[in-house]
């Protein structure tokens, strides 16, 4: 059993690492896009096997019920994005926005990012997790700046500065956690091993843990995009290549949130430490309120969906902060659905921006007339992300608001109202984008719509019928989370 498990854990890490190296040296453009997709697919398959085959936890890697959900989701979206990326990049090469050299760089970075995210999710060592998240930050900074326009450089610079300050805070927090642990567990790797930390946490010094969690929440929270540490997020989403926006929103934010969750369970296991929940609730709620108002008056379509990601990460952080089996269940499901929907929307938006040659929403009108597939795809995606029934996100938002209502009506009302505000903003924009007289280019799109509709189909299916096995699994994980 465990032998097979470690083989697949190895595969999840080694496939992206090796293909990153290969893609950096292979010259041919067509083949590299396919190799990229193939590598992502193989990683996804290996990750799925982890549901059944698990190695025993070591000092560095662990597969448990919580991270397997993140891993499978992450590798799945990684795979569909790589398929989308193939057609997207081909177009960028034709228009000359990217040269073959940059393309090689892009593919190598894509796989490095996949490697870093999988490593962060699988790591059982808080130091290793930090290194992995740092690597992920680095690769995305480089990719955001890949077009080298002034706007892209500014976005990359801002992302780099805020991201590294966040990373620095997270490291300081990690050092403090080690200090708290090493007094109890002793020196060495044990004191940084997550599974040991959770088990022995009740004996740790609460004051040290409190301070550590503050730094960790601020540090990794920057990467989650929580207000007031979010300033990098809309720019990075708007200026990078669209597949990267999809992976940023769909995956990297989740990975950072996962790090916060890991430390949250260390905190909650300690009776003397303060409860981490209220902090997360307030940061989450602040993000939702702020982002939902910021959704109005956006001009750039990718920026707008960047703000929408802040809003949804806020909802998820809020729900995890509330805690309890039901809120955790809703948060996990919401996170999954948000990843699928948001990356699907970015696939759609990427095609729209390419065919229209602009990201300015004033120049994009009447998509359902000029490009019916893209237009209706966008309608579907925005309806899903805004939380219209019967989409899955409606259900999870409803669950979150209703469980909150039972415990703290005031918070629930604030959350509900902000959701409505965001809903209004999105529909207002959608109206202009999708309907009315078409505006601008009417060229047909040459792109694969399979990834986009595959995501939306999953989201709709989740809203209508969730397989009982999946529900049971999520409930089980939600019960484990503390």
């Amino acid at each position: 059993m465990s032998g097979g498990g470690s083989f697949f854990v190895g595969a999840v890490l080694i496939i992206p690492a090796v293909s990153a190296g290969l893609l950096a040296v292979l010259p041919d453009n067509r083949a590299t896009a396919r190799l990229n997709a193939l590598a992502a697919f193989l990683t996804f398959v290996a990750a799925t096997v982890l549901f059944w085959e698990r190695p025993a936890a070591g000092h560095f890697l662990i597969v448990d019920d919580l991270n397997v959900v993140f891993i499978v989701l992450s590798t799945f979206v990684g795979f569909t994005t790589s398929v989308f990326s193939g057609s997207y990049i081909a177009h960028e090469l034709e228009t000359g926005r990217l040269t073959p050299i940059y393309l090689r760089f892009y593919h190598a970075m894509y796989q490095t990012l996949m490697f870093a995210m999988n490593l962060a999710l699988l790591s059982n060592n808080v130091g290793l997790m930090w290194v992995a998240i740092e690597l992920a930050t680095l690769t995305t900074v480089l990719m955001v700046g890949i077009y080298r326009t002034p706007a892209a450089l500014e976005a990359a610079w801002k992302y780099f500065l805020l991201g590294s300050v966040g990373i620095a805070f997270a490291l300081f927090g990690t050092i403090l956690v080690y200090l708290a642990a090493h007094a109890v567990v002793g020196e060495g790797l044990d004191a940084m091993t997550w599974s040991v930390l959770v088990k022995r946490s009740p004996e740790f010094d609460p004051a040290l843990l409190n301070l550590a969690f503050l730094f960790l929440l601020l540090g990794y929270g920057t990467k989650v995009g929580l207000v007031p540490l979010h300033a990098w997020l809309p720019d990075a989403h708007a200026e990078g290549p669209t597949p990267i926006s999809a992976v940023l929103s769909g995956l990297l934010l989740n990975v950072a949130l996962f790090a916060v969750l890991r430390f949250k369970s260390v905190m909650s296991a300690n009776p003397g430490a303060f409860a981490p929940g209220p902090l997360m609730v307030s940061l989450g709620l602040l993000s939702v309120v702020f982002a939902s108002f910021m959704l109005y008056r956006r001009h750039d379509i990718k920026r707008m969906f960047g703000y929408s990601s802040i809003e949804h990460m806020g909802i998820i952080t809020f729900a995890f902060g509330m805690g309890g089996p039901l809120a955790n269940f809703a948060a996990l499901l919401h996170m999954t659905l948000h990843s699928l929907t948001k990356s699907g929307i970015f696939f759609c938006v990427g095609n729209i921006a390419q065919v229209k040659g602009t990201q300015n929403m004033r120049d994009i009108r009447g998509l359902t007339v000029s490009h019916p597939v893209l237009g209706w795809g966008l309608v579907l995606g925005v309806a899903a992300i805004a939380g219209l029934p019967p989409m899955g996100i409606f259900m999870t938002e409803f669950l979150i608001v209703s469980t909150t209502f039972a415990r703290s009506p005031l918070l629930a009302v604030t959350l509900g109202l902000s959701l409505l505000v965001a809903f209004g903003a999105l529909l207002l924009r959608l109206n202009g984008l999708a309907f009315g007289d078409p505006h601008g280019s009417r060229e047909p799109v040459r792109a694969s719509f399979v990834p986009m509709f595959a995501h939306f189909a999953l989201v709709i299916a989740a809203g209508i019928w969730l397989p009982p096995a999946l529900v049971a699994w999520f409930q089980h994980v939600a019960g484990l989370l503390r």
Partner: protein
Amino acid sequence: MDPLALDVAHLFAGGLVLVSFMLLYQDRMTGLVNTFALHALVVSLSVAWQAHIQHAPHLYITAAIALIVKAIIIPLALHRIIVQLGIHRTIETVVGIGQTMLAGIGLVALSIMVMLPITAKAGTLTQQDLAFALAVLLLGLLMMISRRNAVSQVIGFMSIENGLILAATGAKGMPLVVEISVAFSILIALIVIGVFLFRIRESFDTVDIHALHEYRGEQP
């Protein structure tokens, strides 16, 4: 622990905070880069001393990385960059040196007041290292927000990183310190190359990040 060993460790850690203050008021780019080289030198001495007194030979690697990469290679590269960008003579207006220094003193007091009681059980060496490390971290942040120049901001970030290395070595027996310092060095090297390669100067004719703000994506 031997009181002399402790005193020397204290000297280096305190020296690092002092050099952080010196970074705050440098208004010439050349002076700033030289002061940063001093900062890196102090941190490498401090790490080497900790390696000696903690009997942790792997920390010598961290010290060597700090010395070679951050005290020698990066300052040399930065000197080249600022000469090529033609900003080696410019005087950067640092907003109110007086206020910045006062804020810095406040931050040091804050970090000492926060860290000393919390780490009381962790031993004197760790206690002092962490308090000083937090001070260096906060001073670096202060520098990053009070400067407008991309190169100065990078230097501010690198001083933060030196503070973190101090904290990591102060936490006795912490594993992965070497790996973390390598990862950090890669990050920094990339950034310095980034400033150069992305040719902020070429695209904007300036490294003043105020100029960047013109290009926000939110223009009507």
